[in-house]
């Protein structure tokens, strides 16, 4: 017993080394799966406050670019307003339309932390459960898709960036839903890939890639980007498609979190029928 204690005391540093390495490895393997991101919720509250302060300062430097993007978005929205349309017929009747109800609503948020250089990138937003944010909500920038909320604390939330090798979406290419996957290969932060699209579809450079409602994260027709290059895959059955992202992920500033009012209902209904892809 005495000897054992002496042995432990003498080699204490080696045991400590092994313990610390063990803790780190455990954390690395256990927590890097985003479903089990317990780590995020505890640390994001503390870090969020510090990162907000940093963002408050940094914001001034990007005001001009941010302004430009908002202007572009304004132009886009203005062209959608009714005042831009000419009504040739004057015999319209006002009806209270109870057949329609709002499904998607948008919550503006600011990015307070963002990374693009890792294989699995995340960004932090200054909105949390107090503002009604929940896991699984889509995040878009004024120009296109940006990510997906994976963790929420009271005042902040963490979103998986589209630049994350775990991020998967079903794309719509040139207005047609194709059963492929939008997925990043971890190389270039301006380009994501679309895989598993059968080569008999007509896919060309310049076609627009947009979202579908699958998964109930995004409304349909939110832009992801434009096709940059199309090549036959190695086995010749599929297209290898590179898509130039509409959103400049390195300059992510103002974003919108998308709330789908029927998501819970849809998910409950679909539970048990869905095959996880």
């Amino acid at each position, binding site marked *: 017993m005495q000897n054992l204690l002496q042995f432990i005391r003498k080699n204490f*540093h080696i045991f*400590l*080394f092994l313990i610390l390495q063990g803790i780190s490895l455990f954390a690395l393997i256990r927590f890097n799966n985003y479903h089990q991101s317990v780590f995020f919720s505890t640390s994001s509250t503390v870090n969020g406050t510090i990162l907000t302060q940093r963002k408050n300062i940094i914001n001034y430097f990007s005001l001009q670019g941010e302004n430009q993007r908002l202007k572009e978005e304004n132009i886009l929205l203005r062209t959608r307003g009714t005042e831009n349309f000419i009504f040739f017929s004057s015999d319209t009747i006002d009806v209270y339309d109870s057949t329609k109800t709002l499904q998607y609503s948008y919550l503006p948020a600011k990015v307070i932390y963002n990374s693009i250089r890792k*294989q699995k990138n995340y960004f932090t937003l200054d909105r949390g459960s107090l503002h009604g944010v929940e896991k699984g909500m889509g995040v878009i920038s004024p120009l296109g898709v940006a990510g997906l909320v994976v963790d929420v604390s009271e005042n902040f939330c963490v979103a998986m960036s589209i630049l994350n090798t775990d991020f998967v979406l079903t794309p719509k290419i040139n207005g047609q839903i194709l059963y492929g996957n939008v997925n990043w290969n971890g190389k270039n932060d301006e380009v994501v890939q679309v895989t598993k699209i059968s080569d008999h579809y007509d896919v060309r450079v310049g076609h627009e890639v947009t979202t579908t409602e699958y998964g109930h994260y995004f409304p349909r027709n939110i832009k992801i980007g434009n096709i940059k290059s199309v090549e036959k895959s190695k086995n010749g059955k599929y297209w290898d498609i590179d898509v130039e992202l509409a959103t400049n992920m390195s300059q992510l500033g103002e974003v919108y979190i998308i709330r789908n009012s029927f998501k819970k209902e849809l998910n409950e209904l679909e539970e048990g029928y869905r095959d996880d892809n």
Partner: protein
Amino acid sequence: MITRDWIRLVASSIVVLAVQILIINNLNLNQYMFPQLYIILLLSLPINLKHYVGYLIAFIMGFVVDSFSYTPGLQSFTAVFVMFLRYSYFNNLVDKEWLSSGIRPSFSNADSGWYLAYVSIFTFVFHFVLLILENFSFVNFGGTMLKILYSSSLAILLILLFQFTFNRETVNDE
């Protein structure tokens, strides 16, 4: 380490970690450059510092950087591992008399050729372990190697710059 050393360690840690977390982690130079400046803190700990203290310091620093970049365990693993290599080096390949002097390696109190090699090798090893571990596979190994090379070169440059800037203080203290 006496109290003054501890105060200095904490103060310099706050500065360097702030630079790492708030500035360097947010610099988007390009896809291949991801320098870790904060390992200068580990490399300039006193060479005869007790082992368990060294490991704990490395772990805490790694943990802080991890928690700000959402990579739990990645930096802390690498930092503790590099600390282990550093101890192996100092305990086996350096003469005992110099080891017991307990200096903090820098340009002012070591041979500059030796110091350059010391910083370069450990920085390279750090980035090697870090980025291999981050990728967790050997797919696109060429790209990872390139990233390791670019990142560690930039980190070495930054560390030397840092040393040149703050070296004067240490000389005055001695």
